[in-house]
């Protein structure tokens, strides 16, 4: 290598503000150690009430039956399935950051991986609500979903993508949780060692499993961490692929396409990164973490948002091309109907938010501007919700038989329970911000050494 190349290469500065190792502990642990601020309580009570509202509506729905929703023939799937796919998708960015970027040795992930992984777990917990409550009798759902020996001697249908989903999302939740916990062990030990309050000391001693930072342990730990990253990488790709099979394995025009698995995975990472940007822009402001989650981190995430946004844009175009190229009149109609039929507004909301708006990230000024990236990330979240709405609703509402065509309108039960799911997600995320270190301290120390 010539010297000029070496000189031109500037390693990223991952932590600004000239921090020492002990500053890292102070800056990040302090939020766990003091009483929550009024702002936090305001957010928490809001989240609780929003969740309470949704839960009440869900209770009324269980009492009266699914008829209170907008579902009917031919739209047997509606907003609940849209929400399920949306929330599972949100989770994918966390695993991408924690596992895939780890395998690619992207050191900048250390600033954001803890919060992103927490987001993954809470998003999957939110997603899991929907398939369970949309059965209408959630207390039976466990018996329908899990293969276990029963008196009827019946088994679940292993040829159904819906069952594959149970295994995929269930495994995803368990493995993400274990991976996250393994990452937390050394940081829980930090909180334990700083604790002066005996109750806090006791709780964090238990949680940290008595971790001592021994290098005989670190050697196993690093190997296990690498293995988790290696296992999570194909897992995360499989999860949204399997979710896409829920649609793609059926014979409905608009669903029955081979592009679905990669298209869904790209969309999931796209929407997940938008959610990470939304959450971290707020968190770094509220918790004073600007030296750890720098503009450089956010800019890299915005680049990923733009790249994955163009991937989904390509998928939208490719679907139209194949609809024409296939020569199938049903397929062709499904796509023309999607863009110019009664749900045109949903289709163009999706395209504008997902393909057009992220193009602003070609400009460095936009990529590094907090207000712009915050607004764009909100648009992407909205756009990706509409993408799932477009796929689920517009394909169903006009199938092969024109006599069964209808226009699906969600009721306020659909909307209220959807809103409630955001309350549920934020309850967990806010608790996480108060009870656990939001940045992986041990990992960030490893990338600070000069």
């Amino acid at each position: 290598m010539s010297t000029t190349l070496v000189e031109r290469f500037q390693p990223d500065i991952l932590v600004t503000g000239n921090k020492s190792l002990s500053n890292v502990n102070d800056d990040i642990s302090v939020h766990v150690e003091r009483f929550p601020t009024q702002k936090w309580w305001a957010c928490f009570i809001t989240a609780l009430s929003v969740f309470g509202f949704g839960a009440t509506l869900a209770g009324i729905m269980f009492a009266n039956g699914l008829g209170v929703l907008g579902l009917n023939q031919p739209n047997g799937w509606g907003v609940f399935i849209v929400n399920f796919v949306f929330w599972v998708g949100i989770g994918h960015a966390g695993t991408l950051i924690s596992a895939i970027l780890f395998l690619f040795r992207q050191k900048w992930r250390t600033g954001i991986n803890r919060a992103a992984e927490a987001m993954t777990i809470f998003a999957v917990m939110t997603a899991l609500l929907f398939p369970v409550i949309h059965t209408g009798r959630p207390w039976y759902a466990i018996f329908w979903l899990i293969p276990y020996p029963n008196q009827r001697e019946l088994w679940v249908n292993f040829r159904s993508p819906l069952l594959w989903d149970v295994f995929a999302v269930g495994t995803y939740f368990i493995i993400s949780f274990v991976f996250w916990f393994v990452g937390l062990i050394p940081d829980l030990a930090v909180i334990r060692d700083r604790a002066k309050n005996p109750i806090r000391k006791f709780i964090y001693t238990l949680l940290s499993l008595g971790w001592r930072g021994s290098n005989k342990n670190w050697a196993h730990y690093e190997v296990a961490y690498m293995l988790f990253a290696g296992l999570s990488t194909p897992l995360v790709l499989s999860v949204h692929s399997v979710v896409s099979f829920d649609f793609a394995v059926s014979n409905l025009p608009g669903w029955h396409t081979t592009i679905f698995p990669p298209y869904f995975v790209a969309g999931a990472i796209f929407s997940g990164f938008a959610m990470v940007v939304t959450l971290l822009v707020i968190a770094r402001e509220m918790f004073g973490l600007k030296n750890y989650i720098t503009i450089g981190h956010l800019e890299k995430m915005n680049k990923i948002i733009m790249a994955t946004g163009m991937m989904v844009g390509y998928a939208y175009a490719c679907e139209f091309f194949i609809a024409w190229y296939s020569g199938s009149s049903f397929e062709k109609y499904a796509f023309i109907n999607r863009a110019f039929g009664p749900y045109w507004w949903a289709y163009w909301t999706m395209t504008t938010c997902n393909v057009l708006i992220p193009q602003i990230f070609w400009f460095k000024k936009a990529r590094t501007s907090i207000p712009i990236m915050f607004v764009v990330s909100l648009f992407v979240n909205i756009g990706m919700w509409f993408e799932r709405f477009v796929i689920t609703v517009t394909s169903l509402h006009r199938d092969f038989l024109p006599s069964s065509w209808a226009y699906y309108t969600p009721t306020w039960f659909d909307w209220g329970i959807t809103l409630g799911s955001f309350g549920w997600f934020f309850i967990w995320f806010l608790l996480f911000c108060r009870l656990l270190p939001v940045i992986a301290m041990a990992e960030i120390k490893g990338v600070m050494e000069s």
Partner: protein
Amino acid sequence: MKLSGVVAFFDKPSQLIEATKKVREARYANFDTFTPYPVHGLEAAQGIKRSPIPYVTFIFGITGCGLAFLLQYWTSAVDWPINVGGKPFNSWPAFVPVMFEVTILLAGLSTFAALLFFCRLPNFKKKAFDTSITRDRFALMIEAPGEGETFSENQVKDFLKATGAKEVRTVYEEGWF
């Protein structure tokens, strides 16, 4: 109280690595280093062997894959065969997604179990001897040998001081609670 060992503290990881090499050359049987984050080069200096966890992961991954196939084959083709869309009872391509997921599930859970096993976690018997280790200090402990062997505290202390340690002191065994 039972003597646990003699501990030396260092401010920089590079100093710890140098000291570790010297301790190893002096052929102390039992010693360990303690750091706030994994320090590269320390494993080699300390002579730690590669972790056997990947073998556990591999074996359980294969087991998960096999078990998932057997479960699906037995329930769909043997115990109660159901004709789904004219597909064969043993329609193995449809079993692949669940086989894959169970592979990952067992591999991941066994990795976690193996990590706890090899690290002797949860550890409630040996308390961390200094709270600064999870903050910013790097420590090396020469452990006291078992009954019947001689261990000269002062000799070890002098030796550790000579390696450039900032602070050297003895540690006694203590549980967390």
